């Protein structure tokens, strides 16, 4: 049980309805300081709306938010002073220079970091005098992160921070995020990428249909799946009897888009049987992998859907 003053944010019974639609249907969670808290969920799960409420863009219909030790019905300007927000999409004025953008956003806060420092943090120093319209996708994303950090916030929202970035840029972003966490900042992250959630998160909450269906650290969540091991292979032709047969070797088996997934608690036993089956049925176990369960599997177990549509 965390101490009260170790919590950055506590959300209780948050609700948001759009007419008949319960976009956010009574969710509660607590976020400790200096951690990365990730919200996962398929499209339409309500995570975007939840974020908007926490960022102060919309007001909730019910519930309470406690942040920076203050109890609120909705996020106020005073709270915004100490928050940084990276939106999923949004544009900067193309005719402005990079440094002018940072200075502009800096002027919105009572306390802000010097422009140079901000640009150095996101590795955009050489682009200080470049016009926004000349920046690449990755550079624009870094500028957006810089803008989100301009007031040296203690609480940072990162909405899909690496979408559309190439692998190198994604790695860079990850190290920025972990650096921030190590500096004692609290980060609320949303993402579509399971590896990202696993790599960065201290706590994860999975949302679907407006409610939280699971909460915990990545390890806690995957351990729901017990002492399982997962065996996967590719196939082009599999019949129902085959799947039933495979399932009998382990705990569960399913096929999805040409990938067969078999879960087992007894790896060796299942493996032997599968190899025999493969030889007998003359179905090769192409691209076979053996791995530990990940968040994707948890997600699939809980929602019946994949994280990435």
């Amino acid at each position, binding site marked *: 049980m965390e101490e009260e003053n170790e919590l950055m944010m506590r959300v209780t019974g948050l609700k948001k309805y759009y007419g008949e639609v319960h976009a956010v249907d009574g969710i509660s969670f607590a976020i400790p300081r200096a951690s990365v808290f990730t919200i996962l969920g398929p499209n339409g799960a309500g995570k975007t709306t939840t974020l908007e409420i926490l960022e102060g863009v919309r007001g909730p219909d019910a519930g309470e938010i406690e942040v920076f030790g203050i109890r609120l019905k909705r996020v106020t300007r005073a709270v915004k002073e100490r928050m940084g927000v990276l*939106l999923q999409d949004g*544009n900067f004025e193309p005719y*402005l220079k990079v440094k002018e953008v940072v200075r502009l956003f800096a002027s919105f806060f009572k306390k802000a970091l010097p422009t140079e420092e901000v640009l150095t943090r996101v590795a955009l120093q050489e682009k200080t005098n470049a016009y926004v319209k000349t920046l690449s996708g990755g550079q624009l994303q870094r500028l957006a992160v810089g803008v989100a950090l301009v007031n040296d916030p203690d609480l940072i929202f990162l909405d899909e921070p690496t979408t559309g970035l190439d692998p190198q840029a994604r790695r860079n972003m990850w190290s920025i995020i972990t650096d921030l966490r190590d500096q004692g900042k609290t980060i609320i992250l949303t993402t579509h990428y399971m590896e990202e959630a696993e790599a960065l998160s201290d706590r994860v909450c999975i949302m679907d249909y407006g409610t939280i269906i699971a909460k915990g650290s990545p390890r806690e969540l995957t351990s729901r799946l017990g002492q399982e091991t997962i065996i996967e292979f590719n196939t082009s032709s599999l019949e129902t009897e085959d799947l039933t047969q495979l399932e009998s070797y382990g705990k569960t088996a399913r096929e999805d888009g040409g990938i067969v997934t078999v879960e087992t608690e007894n790896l060796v036993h299942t493996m032997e049987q599968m190899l025999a089956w493969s030889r007998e049925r003359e179905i090769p176990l192409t691209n076979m992998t053996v791995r530990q369960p990940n968040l994707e599997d948890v997600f699939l177990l809980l929602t019946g859907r994949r994280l990435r549509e």
Partner: protein
Amino acid sequence: MRAFQALLHTEYTVFLRDKASLTFTFLFPLIFILIFGFLMRGMGDVEDARLGLFVPAGVESKILERTVSSAGSMSVTRYDDQPSLQAALEKRTIDFGLIWDGTKLLFLYDSSRVQENYAFEEVATGITADFNLAHQGLSPALTVEKIHVGREAATDWFNLVVPGILAFSILSAGLFAVSGHITAMKERKLLDRMIVTPMRPIALLAAIICVRLAVVYISTLITLFIAMTVLKLTFAVDWFRYTVFVATSTLGMMGFGTLIALLVRKPSSASNIAHILSIVMMFLAGIYFPIEIMPSYLRTLSKALPLTYMAEALRYATGVIDMTETRFWGITVAMFALAVVLLPLLARYVVSADRR
């Protein structure tokens, strides 16, 4: 305050760097003035009309010539026969023709000059009347003395038009500042990143308004200056009233633009609607021709348009017409009221999030 200053800097920097928009804003009213002014000046103006005259040999024409020369400052060209007169008319070497054969006066017009002929016909009627009297040794008994009541300055037809065009450029600038500039910012998601910060929307609005007011004022001054130097017009500008009115009417039109932005679903549609409304208003507000010549239902419509009153107030502020102080300040206050009521709604529009 810092936010306002930074936003102000951003607004005018972006405005100055967007060369296309910059030229458009300043060039547009000028193009209007020059083109429309010159084009429509021709209508109804018969001072330099060219008359072609043919009198067959043997017909007495002295009286007619005297009548014609006293009918106004027309130029008269004589032709040797009817076909050459008609040819000159078709070629537009002359504006209308007159043939006197001793028994009747035959006036010839080019049927395709529909908008100008009524003025020539008026001259013709005058010539017929005067000639009839002169032919019998008479001159008109019922003469008229015209006395001008009103301001000194305005005598050229342009003087009436220029304030109307200034009014139109203020209308456009104010309207499109909101249903154009701000709606585009919303549509291009430039506002999104700002509204998640503690930025107060009023700071953004104030910055946009300041820049827009400055731009409008400078643009109208440039237009006035060009009108005075290139078109050689004189205006007796009451700078206090002019400044106050330009400011309040710009704000009022921004309020009007807000109304459009609030009523229309898509931000991009707002600027289209604004464009359409401004063109319709331009025709109906009595800028280029007096509203008296419009059918009564159009006249009524004209009296419902803000542009009509803006043009009138600017004619007063530039010394072209007279107006009671009550009326002028009434119009000014109405513009301001429009702003006061609607601009706060604009502040809310700026920060309202769209349903994602």
